[in-house]
């Protein structure tokens, strides 16, 4: 994450470099609370991702920043230090890339890109020049005169980007911009967006439901659920140190084993599950409490196999006796289910030499699993005092 280093350097300890401050935003649609007292900030130049499933409030939050939604209640919203609560979307220094692009069908590519300048009364020649610059940036200069419906999905996406960038906003808001693209194109566009972010040094606020996208692109991730923030931090935090069972599950941890905390020592918790005690670093939001329910989160690729008669001679490992279960062929690897007396555990096997029918145990390093609260609903994590 070279980006996060750059961003960290830029912001080194100064509060004045917060380009966005949202304080205590609440939004209701009728009886439904879409956003429940959420506060976020973004540093200048940061790539901030709002992650969550549909209905988590991430898009509502983005729309509130854009000014397209007027929050039911908000203490303060400031862009670049200026309070914008009373300023309409048209005069806020941020632009949005819409999920379905929202390119004007009656205009050419060039006219679409120029729109932001046209409504600001900038003359034709300058408009054209800047539109060409913006289209060059997204490698679509040759499409200036095309109609929108003649473009492919990926090209529309890039036109939408050029259109949003042309007014040189302080913040670029992206609402699931890659959602409508196919898998391969999506990966290409991820790289392109990252390049653009680096080149422009602009603050990106990116909404997605894909943890993989969030991990690849962000300097910082804010994971939301049911209108609240569940956990926020750099990708490695969410990936390796989930604050709750929900986060671990959302971030794709395959094995979530439920137990009771038996002891806590120097940030390491030991959990009793059936007849076994499993240890690992505590990553829950609050302090670990003895006797409380906890969840051991282990990724399938961290689970190793011990064939019969081979001793595990490493210190600090968790071991479970097991027998082989179902195997799913995935091409590059095998997804192997292993049956233990505390339930099935999934392992990812890259080495085809392993004989899964001759196993004694499975094991993983204590440092390679996280122990977190068993919380599966909203309400765990930071920014939550309600």
């Amino acid at each position, binding site marked *: 994450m070279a980006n996060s280093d750059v961003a960290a350097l830029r912001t080194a300890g100064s509060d004045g470099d917060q380009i966005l401050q949202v304080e205590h935003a609440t939004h209701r649609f009728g009886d439904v609370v879409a956003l429940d007292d959420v506060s976020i900030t973004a540093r200048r130049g940061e790539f901030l991702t709002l992650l969550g499933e549909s209905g988590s409030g991430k898009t509502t939050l983005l729309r509130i920043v854009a000014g397209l939604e007027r929050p039911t209640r908000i203490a303060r919203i400031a862009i670049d230090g200026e309070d914008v609560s009373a300023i309409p979307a*048209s005069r806020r220094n941020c632009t949005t890339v819409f999920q*379905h692009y929202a390119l*004007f069908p009656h205009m050419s590519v060039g006219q679409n890109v120029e729109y932001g300048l046209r*409504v*600001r009364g900038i003359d034709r020649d300058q408009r054209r020049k800047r539109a060409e610059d913006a289209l060059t940036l997204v490698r679509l200069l040759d499409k200036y005169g095309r109609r929108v*419906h003649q473009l492919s999905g990926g090209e529309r996406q890039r036109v939408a980007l050029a259109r*949003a960038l042309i007014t040189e906003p302080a913040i670029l808001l992206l609402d699931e911009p890659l959602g409508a693209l196919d898998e391969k194109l999506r990966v290409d566009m991820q790289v392109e967006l990252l390049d653009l972010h680096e080149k422009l040094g602009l603050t990106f606020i990116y909404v997605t439901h894909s943890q993989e996208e969030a991990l690849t692109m962000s300097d910082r991730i804010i994971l939301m659920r049911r209108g609240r923030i569940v956990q926020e931090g750099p990708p490695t935090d969410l990936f390796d140190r989930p604050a709750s069972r929900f986060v671990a599950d959302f971030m794709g941890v395959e094995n979530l084993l439920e137990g009771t905390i038996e002891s806590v020592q120097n940030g390491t918790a030991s959990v009793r599950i059936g007849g076994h005690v499993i240890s690992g670093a505590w990553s829950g939001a609050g302090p670990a409490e003895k006797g409380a329910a906890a969840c051991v989160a282990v990724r399938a690729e961290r689970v190793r196999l011990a064939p019969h008669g081979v001793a595990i001679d490493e210190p600090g490992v968790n071991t479970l006796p097991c027998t082989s279960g179902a195997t799913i062929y995935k091409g590059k690897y095998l997804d192997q289910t292993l049956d233990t007396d505390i339930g099935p555990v999934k392992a990812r096997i890259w080495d085809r030499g392993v004989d899964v029918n001759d196993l004694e145990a499975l094991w993983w390093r204590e440092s390679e699993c996280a122990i977190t609260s068993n919380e599966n609903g909203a309400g765990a994590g930071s920014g939550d005092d309600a």
Partner: protein
Amino acid sequence: MAATLTANDDVLRRLLPRLPAGVWSLSGFSVVWFGGIVIPLLAIILVSFFQGRGIRINIDPTFLQYERFFSYGGGDLLARSVRIAATITFIELMIAFPFALWLAKGCKNNMVRLLTFTALTVPFFLSPAARVIVWRSVFGINGVVNQALLGIGAVDEPVTWLIFSEFAVHFGFLGAFFPTMVWPIFLSISLIDNDFLEASNDLGANRFRTLVHVIFPLALPGVVAGIVFTFIPMLGDTVVAQHMGGNNVLMLSAQVQSLIGVSNFLVAAALAAVVLGIMLAFQVLLWAALKPVGGLNEVFANLRR
């Protein structure tokens, strides 16, 4: 068409060349259109060049009927008809567009919307003559308005220009042709995705600029349809001019009808041909007006998004 031929399917298959259903329905439509619409129109135009001799008709082509028409003040009649129809169409557009915009995008209350829809269809429940004639009791010499004005002493004697005047004709048309303008515009504005309005707003356009640059161009198909379905039927309307204008405000179609009433078919035909000509000219004008935005095809292509 193909579906109706199932009875003797096999025989028909052998008899008829194998063409796709589309071709059959198209040719079927063409036959109906040609037989039902084009031939009568051509007949009218043809007849307008004939000459009457007693009760017989002389088929030597002549412009006599047109000369008669224009020498008896037909030019004024023509100008007045087009002027009134154009004025009303323009006023309707000015009122209907904001109204349709409100109905399509502004009105969030479904009950209000439903009631508005119903209100828009109410005029069609009544016969055209009945809904126009009501105004006589409002605007007549002894009508409600005059009674009121006399009552409060605003005037000493009844105002006469309220009925059988151009004012009255304008008024009559305004109510009758409001729905035909509102409907198509409402539909085309409804089709505009809110995303486009938000994108425009987000990119820095205020409401007025969004209206000019996004809403209006995307609503253009509806505006065109509204103008066509308001202007042309108004030119063909016989009721309003007759009942609201009386003999003071003669208009083309009402005149055609009264000429038929006195069995003057030849001048009536000439007059009808003139009306046809105006309608044709109007279409050409509309086509030319849409040229700068890419022509009619392009305007309607924007519906596909």
